[in-house]
Structures are given as structure tokens and as C-alpha cells.
């Protein structure tokens, strides 16, 4: 009980004094997860849109793989990326193992299927009459696609937020490919695991609280997007 109380008091001090080590870990976590999410969205959204748009070859198989990818165990993703990036692996020459780039890659692999699947589901749900309306008003094929994507915007954003939720809380994969090197590849989740092992609960609790706050913010954001989609505010994302 003693250690819990002192742990929370110490954690509070670290947060309130904006401890530089704590801040650096949080910033690296946000940087890695943010970059991974950008890559996942750049790849996942067009894939989801293409699958929703027309009957691409092996569509059913790709959708099944995407759905499987949503439940991909992070350590398995980490293991396979490790094998590819290790010295003897096919991409070993890139020297990416135990770098933040490797962590970004593994998180993008984990978030990509979520963004793609939820984007696909959101786009496929758009009423086909929207597409016809765009055509009758003179849209080019690209404008037609963008119009349908815009109609699915809240569902797509919910997919991106869900992807962020997954990668921010992830520990197994990043520890395998990142190595948990202090000041270089140590992020919030890996620090919590390490500091707990060491019995240094102050930093672990402080990071845990920050992680909970981020998770709460993501969930509030998701609920807000769902509400926006329902009440139809008329916000234009591109204009």
C-alpha cells in the first residue's frame, strides 16, 4: 500500500514539474504513433476506398486479410518485422532494427488494417444515390470518389482514431523492433514495463496516467465524431 501511495505522490510531482525525461518519452511516443498513423492512413484509406468502389481482383480475400490484420497479435507483427530487419534478414542492409523508424513501421502495420477496414465499412455504407447525384451535377470520376469519401468522413475519422488507440497502447511489437533504448527508442508503454520491473513506480505511474488521459481523449474524440455523424453539422472537411 505504501509503495502505491508514494508512487502516486512521486508521479504527481513528475507530472506537475514537467520532468524532462517524462516529457521526452511522451513526445517520442506521440511522434512514433503519429507517424505510424499517417502512413497507415495514406495506405489504408485508398485501399478501403478501392475495395468499396469496384470489384477489384481477389476482393473477398483482401477484405478477409484486412479483417484478420485487425486482430493481428502485436508480438507476431513485431516478430516478423524483426526477422525482416535483422542483420541476416532481407531488409537487414537498411540498418533499421532498434530505431524509431522500425517502431513506426511496426505500428503502421498494426494500424493499417484497422484504418483500411473501417474506411471500407464507412465508404460502402454511403447511399449509392450520392454517387449518382455527383455524376448528374457534372463530377469527374475523381470528384465522384472524393464526394463519396467526404460523405463517409466521420466513419473514416473514427477508423483513424481507433488505429491511434491501438498503437498508443501497444508494447510487445515496439519492444521487439525498438529495443527500448533510453533516450532513443524508449516510449511510454515500454518505459512502464521496464520501470515496473525495476520497482520504480513513480515514472511508471506518471506515464500510466498520461496514457490513460490520451486514451480518454481518443475515446471522447470517437464519441464526438459519432455524434457529429448523427447530428449532421454540415462541417466541410475540404472546401
Amino acid at each position, binding site marked *: 500500500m505504501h509503495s502505491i501511495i508514494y508512487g502516486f505522490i512521486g508521479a504527481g510531482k513528475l507530472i506537475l514539474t514537467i520532468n524532462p525525461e517524462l516529457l521526452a518519452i511522451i513526445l517520442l511516443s506521440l511522434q512514433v504513433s503519429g507517424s505510424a498513423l499517417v502512413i497507415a492512413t495514406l495506405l489504408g484509406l485508398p485501399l478501403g476506398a478501392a475495395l468499396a468502389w469496384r470489384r477489384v481482383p481477389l476482393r473477398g480475400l483482401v477484405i478477409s486479410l484486412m479483417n484478420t490484420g485487425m486482430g493481428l497479435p502485436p508480438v507476431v507483427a513485431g516478430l516478423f518485422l524483426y526477422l525482416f530487419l535483422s542483420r541476416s534478414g532481407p531488409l537487414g542492409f537498411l540498418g533499421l532494427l532498434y530505431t524509431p523508424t522500425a517502431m513506426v513501421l511496426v505500428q503502421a502495420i498494426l494500424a493499417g488494417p484497422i484504418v483500411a477496414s473501417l474506411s471500407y465499412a464507412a465508404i460502402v455504407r454511403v447511399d449509392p444515390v450520392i454517387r449518382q447525384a455527383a455524376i448528374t*451535377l457534372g463530377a469527374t470520376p475523381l470528384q465522384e470518389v472524393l464526394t463519396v469519401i467526404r460523405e463517409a468522413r466521420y466513419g473514416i475519422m473514427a477508423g483513424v482514431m481507433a488505429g491511434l488507440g491501438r498503437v498508443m497502447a501497444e508494447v510487445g511489437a515496439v519492444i521487439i523492433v525498438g529495443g527500448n533504448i533510453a533516450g532513443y527508442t524508449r516510449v511510454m508503454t515500454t518505459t512502464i514495463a521496464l520501470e515496473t520491473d525495476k520497482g520504480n513506480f513513480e515514472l511508471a505511474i506518471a506515464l500510466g496516467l498520461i496514457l490513460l488521459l490520451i486514451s480518454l481523449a481518443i475515446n471522447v474524440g470517437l464519441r464526438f465524431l459519432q455524434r457529429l455523424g448523427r447530428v449532421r453539422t454540415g462541417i466541410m472537411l475540404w472546401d
Partner: protein
Amino acid sequence: MGLNLEVARIVKGYKDQAVLRECSFCFEPGRTYALLGPNGSGKSTFFRLAALLEPPDSGEVRYWDNGVELPHDLGLRRRITLLLPRIGVFNTSVFHNVAYGLKIRGRRGQEVEDRVNDVLGRVGLFHKRRQNGLDLSSGETKRLGIARALVIDPEVFFLDEPTANIDPQHTEIIERIILDMKIAGKSTIIVVTHDPAQARRLGEYLLVMDNGRIAPL
């Protein structure tokens, strides 16, 4: 002058069922036509083909401008429009719904603002311009659909049952909008309706779709 539309012996069928059978007709620019016919007679199919949304199985849809036949490209598609029975309202404000046709044509700024506000005034939706289009009543939704088309100044305007399932008050408003367009004489207007009285009120020429063919009434 405007566009001449000629449909020549068009045939269209779905699953071995012929809908249009060698249907032919010439529409003159600036005229208003009312097309009558029972359900399933092929009126909506005819519209989809004439508005270039689908190709016919055989026969031709031709558009002429000053004696020159036009290719079926984006340039031509942007000179004609079709008001679908279901409007397909975008999940955004009434203003942005109406501005859509201008924005995809690359128009920006004050011109868009002025034209959209003008058209919204003509259809009586100016006071609702900031409201989401999906929150309009069914009658207002039809007027929104007409406003989206009017703002792009179509030379040929197909209206597929513009007053179906709406109350008499909104029907009157929509008929007034169509009659104003008819008086302006800038567009060829082709209206599908089930109501012979409405067809007489709106159309200069009354047509009937019977057994997959168009004939003057």
C-alpha cells in the same frame, strides 16, 4: 441557341426484359416537355439514357449544338443535368449542397456566394442556407435538388417526378419554379409526371411513354 437532343431507335432492356423499344424523338432547345406514362413504362430508363448516365443497348443518343454533333464527354455532361426521384443530399449545409456544382467546376469566392444565394432565393430556401441539407422536409429537399441543378445553368434539365410524395403546397412552389424556367426559355426542360393535369400546366408539349416508345399526346 442551346442543345438539340435526338434519341434515335434506342433499345434498353434488363434481364431479358425490354424496357425501351426503338424509342426515337427530337427535343428542341428551350422548349418544355411533359412526359406521361404508367409505372414501369420506361420513363426513368429513358431519362438515364438521355442524360448519359447509361448507354443504350442499341440506338443512339445525340446532342447537337448549332448543327455540330457533340461527343459524350465531361464537357457535354456538364451542360445537362438530371433531377433524380431521390435527391441524394450531401451531409453538409444547404449552401454547400447548392455550391457543389460550381465548386467542382472550379468556381470560387464571391461568384459562388452570389450565385448560390440568388438560386436559394428563387427556390425559397435562402433562410435555411446554414442548415444541414439532411434536416430538410421532403418538399424542401426537392427544392434543394432543383437549386443544385439551377445553379449550374443546365441547357437540358431532366426532372424525374419532381413533385412525387410531397404536399400540395410544395408541389405548387416547385411548379412555379419550373414555370419560371419555362418562361426564361434558356433550358430545355423535360419533366416526368404521373399527373395529366400537371403535365398540361407545365409542358408546352405533352408526350407519352407507351410500350417503350415516346409519342406526342
